[in-house]
Structures are given as C-alpha cells and as structure tokens.
C-alpha cells in the first residue's frame, strides 16, 4: 500500500506545470544524523498543501530549506522555477519578499510593540517612508486578523493565539505569494485553533497565496487542506485529500485520524 502511494507521489511531481515550489530528491543531514532522506513534492499555485507528520520527522527542516535558513545536502529545490542554491544574496532578498513564513513560536520581536513588529518589514524590506501609509497598512492587516486593539501591546502581554495572529499579520503585511505555516495551531485550545485555521482560509482567499501548512492537528487539516502529504522517516509516504486519506487503509495515515 505504502509503495503504491509513493509511486503515485513520484509520478505527480514530474514537471507538472504551475508549480511554485518544486522539490526533487532533497536530502539533508546534521552530522551523521539523516533528517531528510529523500523528499520530492510540488506546491501548485493557489493550493493549500497540508504536510502531516509526527514530531521530529524533519517537517520544519524541509520548509526552512525552501527559504534558505538551511541548505540541502543534495537534490533540487526550485521556487518560481529558480534553483535556490544558485541564488545570490540580492536574489535571495527579492525571493524572500515573496515568501511568508509563520514560525512555530510566532517569533515576534519581544523588544518591540505590536506596531513596531509590523512596521519592521515595511520600513526595512519595502523601505516605506510615508508615516501615514505605514500606519494605514498596519491597521488594515491587524483588522484582518481581528486584533486592532492590541496595536500598543508588547508581545509578552499577548496570549499564544494572539501571538500567532500577530505573527501571521507581520508576515502577510508584505503580501507574500507563498505562505509557509509551521504548526500554526499547535499548543492552542480547539476553539482558537479553529479560528486560526479559518483565518488561514480567509487570508488565502484575500491574498490568493499558495500555502504549505505543517500540522498534526487533523481539525486544522480538515478545514484548510486541498491536498495532504504524510511525512515519515524523512520522506513522504502518502498523498491524497482529506477524505481519501481518512478512508485509506495505511496504518500510519490512519493513526492521524484517531
């Protein structure tokens, strides 16, 4: 069963047009420890791709390779048809403006207020100068995540769910074409989780992003997924939409639905 699924995945990734991210036979080790043994996948324009997998399987490592925080040992990784390992510093900067990354911990800058957090990418990356325009964009994106009244707060005064929302707002403020979500709902209560999942859908509609959503929260996967990949031991073992995987017979895949 697993074998047929893998074959299906590999046949899927072969140069289908419209892929914004195309990964082929990606390998990554830390010292002697092999984390990604052979990863192949594509993310197509406008889709929400959910990656399921237990902790420590290398999901975060895989998406960190996409933004260049980590470099693969071998294999090909194309974003917008450009091989990322050939990019110069300048080209990376341009590419990163088109990719949003929501960290597992939200990674808010804790010495800055919410407003300064959101201002940071506008003034440093887009080099905006006009105070009024900056303020307007901040308010617009905060309204989008429903936290306009937190604008003066420090990150330490925010709850986990609020931090995720602000992290999302800080990423979306640059209007990325690709969004990478690293466990957006982990550690949140079910109600807040659902709100975040719905927010992801809303933002996708509003900004037409293509997204990779890493999670092991099936409620989140059910709401957001157009397609699901299951990662195990450093490679993908199954693919399908929510209903296909739920009704499948693979032991590993079924264990996520329990």
């Amino acid at each position, binding site marked *: 069963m697993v074998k047929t699924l893998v074959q299906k995945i590999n046949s899927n990734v072969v140069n289908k047009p419209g892929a914004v991210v195309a990964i082929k036979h990606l390998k990554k080790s830390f010292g002697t420890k092999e984390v990604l043994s052979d990863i192949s996948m594509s993310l197509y324009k406008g889709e929400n791709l959910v990656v399921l997998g237990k902790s420590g399987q290398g999901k975060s490592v895989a998406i960190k390779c996409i933004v260049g925080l980590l470099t693969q040992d071998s294999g090909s990784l194309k974003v917008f048809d450009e091989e990322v390992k050939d990019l110069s510093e300048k080209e990376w*900067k341009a590419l*990163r403006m088109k990719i949003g990354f929501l960290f597992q911990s939200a990674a*808010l*800058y*804790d010495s800055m207020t919410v407003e300064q957090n959101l201002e*940071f*990418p506008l003034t*440093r*990356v887009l080099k905006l100068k006009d105070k009024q325009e900056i303020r307007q964009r901040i308010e617009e994106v905060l309204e989008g995540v429903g936290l306009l009244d937190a604008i003066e707060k420090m990150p330490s005064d925010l709850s986990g769910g609020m931090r995720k929302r602000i992290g999302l707002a800080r990423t979306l403020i*640059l209007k990325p074409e690709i969004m990478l979500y690293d466990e957006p709902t982990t550690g949140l209560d079910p109600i807040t989780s659902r709100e975040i999942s719905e927010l992801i859908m809303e933002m996708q509609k509003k900004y037409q992003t293509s997204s990779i959503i890493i999670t092991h929260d099936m409620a989140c996967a059910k709401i957001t997924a157009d397609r699901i990949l299951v990662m195990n031991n450093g490679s993908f073992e199954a693919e399908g939409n929510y209903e296909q995987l739920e009704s499948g017979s693979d032991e590993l895949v079924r264990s996520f639905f329990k």
Partner: protein
Amino acid sequence: MVKLVPATWTTAFVAAGDQVVFMGAFFRNIFRSGFEWNEFLRQSYIIGYKSLSLVGITGFILGFVLTLQSEPTMREFGATSFVPSMVTISVIREIGPVIIALICAGKISSSIGAELGSMKVSEQIDAMEVSGANPVQYLVVTRILACIIMIPLLTLMADALAMMGGFAASNMNNHLTATLYFSKAFSALRFGDLIPAVAKTIFFGFAIGFVGCFKGYNSERGTESVGVAANSAVVSASLWIIVLDAIAVQLTSVFAYN
C-alpha cells in the same frame, strides 16, 4: 582520511574562522545604506547610561583605595606628595581601562550574548532574515558600534571619578586643598598618556560588543544555550581584553616612550 591534527585543534580553527567571517559581515554592514540610527542610539543608551552607576562607583573606589593603600608605603620614603600623580598615572594608563573593560565584559557582553542568544533560540533572528530584512545590520552593527563609543566614554568618566576618590582619600589624612591635589595629580600626566589609553579602550569596546554579539548570534538550538552564550561571552571577552592590553602595552612602549 588521516588525522594530522587532534580534533580539538580543528574545532578551535573552525571557531576562529567563524569569528573572522562574522567580523567580515560586521564591517561590510557598517557602510550599507539604511544605518539603524534609532537602534544605535537605543543601544548606546542601554550600554552607556545604564552602566553609569556601576562604572562610576568602581572608578571612585579604585582611586580611593589605591591612594589609601600606597600612602603608608610612600610615607616611609617621605614621598607622600607623589601619591596623587602616581595614582592618577596608573589609573589613567592602565588600571582604569582594564578594570572598567573587565566589568563591562561582565555586564554588557553577557547581556548582549543572552539577548541575541534568546532571539536566536526563539527564531526571531531567523524571522528577520526570512522577511528579507538584515539582522546583522540591525542587531550586530548597532551593538558593536555602541560599545566602541560608550566604553571609552565610560572609562574616561571612571578615570575622573578615580581622581575624586584619590582626593577624598588623601584629604582624609592630609587635608590637602582640591587645587593643590589636582595640580599635583596632573603634574606628571602628559597629554601623550591619554592617547594610547583611550585608543586601547576603543579596542576593548570592540571586543566587548563583538564577542557578545558573536556568542549570542551563533548560539545553538535549545533554551540552555542562552545561558551558555552569556557565560562564554564573558569568559572570552575578558580574555580578549587581557590579551589586547598586553599587545597595547608593547605597542605603546615601542612607539610612545622611545
């Protein structure tokens, strides 16, 4: 592969190489457009103003104690009138810069190491990089430059307070007038003594900022590494200061006093 050198040597060379690369990144980013004036001023305030009382008290007590300690000995030779100039010269040329730098290594290097270390661990530095902003320019350049400017100023202030301390001590025993004390103190001091003394505090300032930033910025994953970064920042900054001082003494004796 044949091992020609022990593994500890290789790690030492790799570590030294990493420091050179980091130093290169610092120098390259000083002159990039978009210098972070606000952050630089904020760091100067934190590094300079918040160390005032510690450095001031240390300086005052330094002069006070040195005077009290040397007076009995000098009295045996009937040379108490040399005490003010002796204390002034030794504080300004050697003791002041080194003691203040070591104290600042404990206070400033460790706090920079811990701050950047926790930003690294909580992925804030990664978040800056991924958004397309320049974390070296924002975090590292500002902190190192603030140290380069504030450490010499703090040392000069400590020198001045050490002379006050010296006056207070000798006034307790000898009832010298302030005018007499300070004219004696300055009598042996040449302007040429100040230049190498200030020059070396600039290098001490660089060492304090650089080591703190390097250790924090390159800390490992996991929360315990924040403590490790802070601690090893103090240890290596202190070592840098001692070594730089030895070099400075050699250079001044070659150039200034021949």
